[in-house]
């Protein structure tokens, strides 16, 4: 085992200070060290999108980052969005539109959608599909996920008017 490193990282608003082995993937750090099992481990090579989290506000794959690289940085996981009985608007929209079945891809879908909504106008449903193309779902056929995001955009536009 190689030398461990001391890191300080803010995860969902709480500071973690401790030692990590350099080869520890961020997703394993989140799940095993911090017990934040909302983030799912799928392919472990950056293809499925299930482990998507926000690093300093940008969506990234937590299977393609090492925990040691998050020293001094800010990480947000699906646990930051809301909790049972207190879901955020995106989660409510997923619930409302049946945008999940088994739920394995859902944390990655939610974190990707959070970043997409921030960075792109998503004028058409094709734009939403393009934006979600890095996240695999084997249950829904994607239609209801697209609908959930579209509905949120529509309700936000309504709120602005």
């Amino acid at each position: 085992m190689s030398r461990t490193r001391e890191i300080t990282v803010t995860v969902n608003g709480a500071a973690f200070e401790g030692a990590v082995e350099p080869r520890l993937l961020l997703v394993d750090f989140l799940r095993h060290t911090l017990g934040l099992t909302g983030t799912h481990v799928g392919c472990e090579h950056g293809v499925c999108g299930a482990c998507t989290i926000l690093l300093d506000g940008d969506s990234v794959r937590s299977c393609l980052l090492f925990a040691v690289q998050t020293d001094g940085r800010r990480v947000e996981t699906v646990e930051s969005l809301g909790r049972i009985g207190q879901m955020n608007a995106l989660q409510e929209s997923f619930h409302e539109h049946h945008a999940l079945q088994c739920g394995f891809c859902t944390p990655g879908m939610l974190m990707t959608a959070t970043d997409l909504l921030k960075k792109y106008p998503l004028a058409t449903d094709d734009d939403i599909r393009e934006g979600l193309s890095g996240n695999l779902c084997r249950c829904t056929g994607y239609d209801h996920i697209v609908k959930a995001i579209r509905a949120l955009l529509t309700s936000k536009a309504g709120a602005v008017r």
Partner: protein
Amino acid sequence: MKPASFDYVAADSIDMAVASLAEARGGAKIIAGGQSLVPMLNFRMLRPALLVDINPIAGMAFIEDAGKDIRIGALTRHHQIETSAVIARHLPILSCAMTHVAHLAIRNRGTIGGSLAHADPAAELPMMALLLDAEIRVASSSGMRTVAARDFFLGALTVDLADGEIVTEIALPKVPPKTGWGFEEVARRSGDFALAAVAVVLTVSEGAIAQARIALTGVGPTPLRAADAEALLVGGAFEPGVAGRLTDAVRAAVEPDSDLHASSEYRRHLAGVLAGRAVAGAWRRANEAAA
């Protein structure tokens, strides 16, 4: 699916990074975005003794209009290039190409220096560097040097970089006035590596093509320029008779492999079709720019 053990250095300067590389005597890998490297570590295709993390280096992610050239720092993320106003204004074909690079979460993290140094045979950025006659600046503990993109890509995943060297910056010459561009790609799914992609820039003068550049990726071990196809375009207008000869010249220039995703024949066929479309698009935009 977990990496083998490695030691880790967070470099906060290029000097520190190259010193760490030199000390490791070939046992180190640089990690920039890590979007290609970490899968290879997870699969244990690579087992470096040391990872030199260059992400903490300040001032290595930038897009700068330097007059003749656009200079891009090696640590610039794909999403920064995709959304850069400077790139959109001077090299719009690069803005378009970036939307084909993987997915948002990958583009948020992946870097231009990493993509060029990794040199995946189906990646977009090596093709764009070759198309735009990029110069790649490289540092090592013994100093700096500059490599032209045409000399940089040596084979699949193989570039002109020694163990102790690191890409620091990419300089892309601005295109001349009256230039149009075309970009065409076919991938199995949105964001996948290209089965074949073609990028074209044409400069027109008095109704004829004065300069033509055609680059391809996914159709050989490295990106390539279709020199014969470029030559036959120069001096005339882009007309239906030329289109047929262009397709043949592009197909003759490529040597695609067969793999799980597509046969060699299909990739060669695609290269011709996509080149025709990309040149037509570039011809239209060049004439609009000249009007």
